[in-house]
């Protein structure tokens, strides 16, 4: 095998279809076909088997099957919610279909793209790819230095063959052919009575760049991507966020991320300016969200930056993205003696476009029992039995429908004492008793800004003191985008070259006639890879060449013509 792969093929030896690149896998249409007739196979030792599997893996057919498996394997990733992109969907699926969940989860379908079987497909594919490009790279580097191969003996078997006779002598015809081919960007080599030319090396160059850049993307994402981290945080107006893990609501480090190397900076939401447009059907559509932030890096002072949906803010090499927004009612809870036991803004998460919001206030300490409030906030309310419903995302100034905070009251065990992480935005009612609100004897609390209400059972009081805005932000540190972009550009560039640059060989042969007989000129081409315009290109080349010959041998022309007429 080794000797065969080294030798340059001699085109035309056994018909053009079988001629090709010996370093292509044997089942490549351009590859050297394996001898199917060999039935008696040698006994393979371990090395033999390894070599056999390697050749199977790097064969074109295997690569193709792996590609199709990759496409097929990605399908479940879109049918089933994924932990990476839709964790809530996964939880919901588990609740709704506990039985199928077990099966699908065992198959790894909820994290399809990191599952062992999906990883196996793409890793095999990339190993196959590397196994294919390394020898091709070597071969191509050799080809770039080599001169075009010897002219085949029988050109008439090749693509676009044509021949003419001329009175021009062979040497002139060859010289003319050489300069013509060179002008057309061919690499030219002289052989006795013929020139051999090849062009389109960029096709293979582009092809190799494309495939190498694919490996580059995979390594960038798989390895360098693991040095990054992402985190989310709800940022209430006037509150400062410091970029340390403990200050995140949720934090996901990459595999190699170093938690001590978080870029130090601080963020603060100063104001939030949403813009909505009223729709004919009575709803509101968001037009623009602008979060005015102050940011600060160590040693610097606060500087102002505006964060928008499509315009992340860069602080100290870390990107901050605007995800969501809403209202944060500010409440103060006091015990019966009037001592403040809880005070501050609480983010209420919006449930619809008009910012009907729900939230939870937890007061674990300071009162006779642990107390929690759960309810609605509506910026422009209409009240229903189940709670308020907002009809506009703007804070109402209409005295008939001022922004309202509607709360039910619970007492019991908030589950905060065990040191286990608990969702701040929901309430586990298992160990709680509802003491006021919908479906209890005591009506719920209905508060407008500045109003306060006593809690049932003489527990204390709560006051609704003001309204702030909040935004939820995604904070990312990812070292890869610049590299990924570089490789993406290489992929696209390489692809364009490899698809649209034709690689072809062309031969022009001039056989001198014996004695006074005219010279016979033959033209033919050979496609290397897809080259649908080859025949036309060879024909045009032949025509051009003949026109040039006509130019150089003016006297010969008349002789020839006379001869013809005679």
């Amino acid at each position, binding site marked *: 095998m080794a000797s065969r792969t080294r030798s340059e093929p001699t085109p035309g030896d056994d018909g053009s279809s079988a001629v090709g690149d010996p370093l292509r896998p044997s*089942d*490549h*249409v351009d*590859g050297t*076909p394996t001898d199917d007739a060999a039935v008696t196979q040698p006994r393979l030792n371990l090395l033999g088997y390894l070599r056999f599997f390697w050749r199977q893996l790097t064969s*074109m057919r295997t690569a*193709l099957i792996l*590609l*199709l498996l990759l*496409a097929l394997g*990605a*399908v479940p*990733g*879109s049918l089933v919610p994924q932990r990476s*992109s839709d964790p809530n969907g996964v939880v919901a699926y588990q609740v709704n279909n506990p039985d199928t969940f077990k099966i699908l989860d065992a198959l790894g379908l909820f994290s399809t*793209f990191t599952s062992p079987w999906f990883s196996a497909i793409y890793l095999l594919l990339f190993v196959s790819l590397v196994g294919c490009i390394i020898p091709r790279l070597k071969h191509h580097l050799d080809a770039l230095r080599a001169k075009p191969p010897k002219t085949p003996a029988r050109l008439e078997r090749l693509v676009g063959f*044509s*021949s*003419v*006779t*001329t*009175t*021009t002598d062979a040497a002139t015809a060859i010289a003319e052919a050489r300069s013509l081919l060179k002008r057309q960007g061919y690499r030219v080599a002289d052989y006795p009575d013929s020139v051999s030319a090849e062009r389109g090396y960029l096709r293979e160059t582009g092809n190799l760049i494309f495939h190498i850049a694919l490996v580059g993307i995979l390594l960038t994402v798989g390895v360098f991507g693991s040095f990054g981290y*992402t985190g989310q945080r709800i940022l209430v107006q006037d509150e400062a966020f410091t970029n340390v893990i403990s200050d995140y609501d949720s934090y996901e480090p990459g595999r190699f991320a170093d938690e001590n190397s978080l870029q130090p900076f601080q963020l603060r939401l100063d104001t939030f300016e949403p813009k909505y*447009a009223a*729709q004919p059907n009575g709803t509101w*559509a968001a*037009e*623009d969200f602008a979060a005015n932030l102050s940011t600060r890096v160590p040693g610097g002072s606060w500087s102002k930056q505006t964060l928008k*949906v*499509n*315009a992340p803010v860069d602080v100290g090499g870390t*990107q901050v*993205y605007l995800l969501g927004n809403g209202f944060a009612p500010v409440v103060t809870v006091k015990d019966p003696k009037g001592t403040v036991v809880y005070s501050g803004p609480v983010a209420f998460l919006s449930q619809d476009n008009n910012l009907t919001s729900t939230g939870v206030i937890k007061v674990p300490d300071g009162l006779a029992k642990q107390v929690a409030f759960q309810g609605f906030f509506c910026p422009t309310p209409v009240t229903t039995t189940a709670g308020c419903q907002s009809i506009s995302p703007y804070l109402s100034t209409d005295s008939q429908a001022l922004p309202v905070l509607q709360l039910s009251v619970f007492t019991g065990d908030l589950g905060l004492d065990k040191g286990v992480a608990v969702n701040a935005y929901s309430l586990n009612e298992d160990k709680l008793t509802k003491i006021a609100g919908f479906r209890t004897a005591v009506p719920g609390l209905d508060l407008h800004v500045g109003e306060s209400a006593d809690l049932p059972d003489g527990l204390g009081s709560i006051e609704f003191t003001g309204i702030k805005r909040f935004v939820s932000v995604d904070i*990312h540190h*990812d070292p890869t*985008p610049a590299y990924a*972009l570089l490789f*993406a550009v290489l*992929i*696209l560039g390489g*692809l364009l070259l490899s*698809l*649209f640059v034709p690689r072809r060989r062309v031969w022009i042969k001039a056989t001198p006639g014996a004695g006074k007989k005219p010279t016979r*000129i033959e033209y033919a081409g050979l496609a290397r890879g*897809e080259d*649908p315009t*080859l025949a*036309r290109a060879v*024909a*045009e080349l*032949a*025509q051009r060449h*003949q026109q040039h*010959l*006509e130019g150089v041998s003016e006297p010969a*022309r008349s002789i*020839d*013509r006379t001869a*013809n007429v005679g």
Partner: protein
Amino acid sequence: MTPAALAAYSVVAVYSAMAVYVLAFIAFALDLSKRSAIAQSSSSTFAPAAGAKAPASLSRATTGSAGAAKSATVLERIAPPAVPTASLAGQASRFQRTAYALVIVGWVVHVAALVLRGLAEGRVPWSDLYGFVVTGTGIMVGVFVVIQVWRDLKFLGAYIMAVVVLLLGLASVNFYVPVEPLNPALQSAWLVIHVFVATLGTGFFAVGGGLSIAQLLQTRREAGGLARVPFLATFPASEVLENIAYRVIVVGFAFWTFTLMAGAIWAERAWGRYWGWDTKEVWTFIIWVVFAGYIHARATRGWRGSRSAWLAIIGFAAVMFNFTIVNLFFKGLHAYTGL
């Protein structure tokens, strides 16, 4: 004119374009039936051409006599790439000429509908599913029209018109949304580039898909089947269809690769990551891989011909699936249907 009035005129234009396309479809269908009649009446003329293996390329022999006659040389032999069947030589029937004229008229009205919708919205008209489908079909017809300059593929007219009318009907009846302000997540220059190039790729995949379907049918006819579809005899040979399909699809593939990248760049701006396996990203990836598979299949022994044609058809089906079912029913970040 108010935006509402512009949008209303746009709707009228879309329905008008659909009506003209339906007429074009009928004329193309009549053309096919006429081809059937011709093929049957002169089956002897067509049989050998269809049975013979045509050369891999369709190039015209430009070395023709004109150049050779003037020169000092005597043309001894030029192997002319045979024109495989009569149809490509192009005696278009009157039905086909009428149909094609109707396509042009319909397309002008279609483009007018897009311009009106764009004016009504004050931006590019493809920011909701309705506008996207109207744009995508407009591009599809545009690619079909422009590609005729390169090569006469009017025999695909009935197929293209059928796909376009079905999609436009679906969009008008089920996807229509009134003009609304642009979702903040879409306020980006990438909306113009990413989505437009995606529709451009789709246009090429649509033509490539049609060619591949024709190729599969032609392959069966060449193997002795499909006697009841005589108009196939007037189509190019399967190998020619395969080569044209390949050349059309690789253009689509280049556009699709760009779409994927532009999408990743935009995602990085808007969502903070360039790739997150969002459902739409998954499908764009699947389509890319299927067409990459198609290109590799063309270079793999035993996969050329019908198998690669199936991949091209599966790829186009996945594109359609991505732009309709995935947009409507799959949960994900690309939730911009406006429905």
